[in-house]
């Protein structure tokens, strides 16, 4: 396949870029390895996207964004791009099947994924009580005690969501205050089923065939305690999905892509938008704005 503009990733940033590009009648294709929606498809409700004062379900917002982009003629191609390289007149995209696509300009919108801490037992027990998706796996823990690790918006929001199922939610946070925004903090403090373990870090997930407990350690005095939980949900940050182009464009020390204010990357013709960018705030609202800007900049590049 050959196109003028290829967009990698079908989350809010990619879908918005696709919508703007399709509306500008650019020859564009959005390449997405699964179903469009990105991380919002794994989010229960979206409470802070303007225009939806009644919280909207994550997957529902994702579907609306996809439908909106398709309305203007955006083509969504279900393929997994494993490598991006410079080619004559543009770029070559290599798929996991070995097939190659070419394009003249490119928007990177591959987003980010939950960080895995890699403590003993964590990776071995994924799907057996360890989870990175409360919406997916919460219902398996009805009337059970569980733990959530982290102190940011995602951690505290998901801890609140999990109180619908769990009899008790232990929130493990390494500091003595939460990073989550105040509105979410207040809800968590008011929820009797959430117990916050301040100044603690997880040390190991214990269990043979399934999670039986979580060992946590005080960062103040090093003392350890065992929490009898059947589930552990990790929300300790995001890592960039930048494997396929990390060597090509400039990234920050964590692998997030560096752009200028017009979303242009270090290689002319490559733009980036959304969670993949090196920046302070990762939200649907920011992703959408960057997607629009990236499409506009790509259009100028193509016409320039």
């Amino acid at each position, binding site marked *: 396949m050959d196109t003028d503009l290829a967009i990698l990733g079908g989350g809010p940033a990619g879908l918005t870029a696709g919508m703007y590009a399709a509306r500008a009648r650019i020859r564009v294709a959005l390449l997405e*390895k*699964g*179903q469009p*929606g990105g991380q*919002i*498809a*794994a*989010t229960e409700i979206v409470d802070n996207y303007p225009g939806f004062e009644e919280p909207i379900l*994550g*997957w529902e917002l*994702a579907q609306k964004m996809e439908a909106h982009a398709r309305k203007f003629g955006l083509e969504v191609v*279900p393929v*997994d791009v*494993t490598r991006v390289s410079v080619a004559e007149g543009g770029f070559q995209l290599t798929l*996991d099947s070995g097939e190659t696509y070419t394009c003249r300009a490119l928007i990177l919108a591959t987003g980010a994924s939950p960080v895995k801490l890699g403590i003993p037992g964590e990776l071995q027990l*994924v*799907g*057996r*009580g*360890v*989870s*990175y*998706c409360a*919406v*997916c*796996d919460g*219902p*398996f*823990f009805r009337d059970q005690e569980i733990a959530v690790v982290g102190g940011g918006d995602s951690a505290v929001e998901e801890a609140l969501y999990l109180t619908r199922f769990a009899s008790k939610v232990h929130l493990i946070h390494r500091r003595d205050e939460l990073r989550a925004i105040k509105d979410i903090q207040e809800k968590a403090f008011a929820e009797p089923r959430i117990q916050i373990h301040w100044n603690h870090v997880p040390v190991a997930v214990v269990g043979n*065939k*399934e*999670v039986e407990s979580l060992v946590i350690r005080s960062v103040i005095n090093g003392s350890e305690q065992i929490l009898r939980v*059947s*589930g552990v949900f990790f929300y300790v940050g995001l890592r960039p999905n930048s494997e396929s182009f990390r060597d090509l464009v400039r990234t920050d020390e964590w692998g997030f892509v560096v752009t200028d204010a017009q979303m242009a990357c270090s290689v002319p013709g490559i733009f980036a938008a959304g969670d993949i960018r090196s920046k302070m705030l990762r939200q649907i609202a920011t992703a959408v704005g960057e997607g629009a800007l990236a499409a506009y900049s790509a259009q100028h590049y193509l016409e320039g």
Partner: protein
Amino acid sequence: MSKNEHLYHVSDADFEQAILKSDVPALVDFWAPWCGPCRTVGPVVEELATEYAGKVKIAKLNVDENKDTAAKYGVRGIPTLMLFNNGQPVDQIVGAVPKSRIKELLDKVS
């Protein structure tokens, strides 16, 4: 939904007959409608059902409607892709992964 003739939909009731007594290895996609990543992996599983037709039986099991089977095999995270051979679970992948990862799993038994 799917019109793929090679993709099976199994339940608590017919799991033994369809999967455990299958004469070829079977891959079961444990999923639920409320799970975003399940929708990511769903189309990939459908493609694989066609590609591996006759070699590996590929089936979907809704964990909401079939809690017994999910509990029996200790599934507490979805999507879980569990590979069965000769009536036993032999390997599994949890979470939405690239198609190539799933093919590696299937190629071990087909």
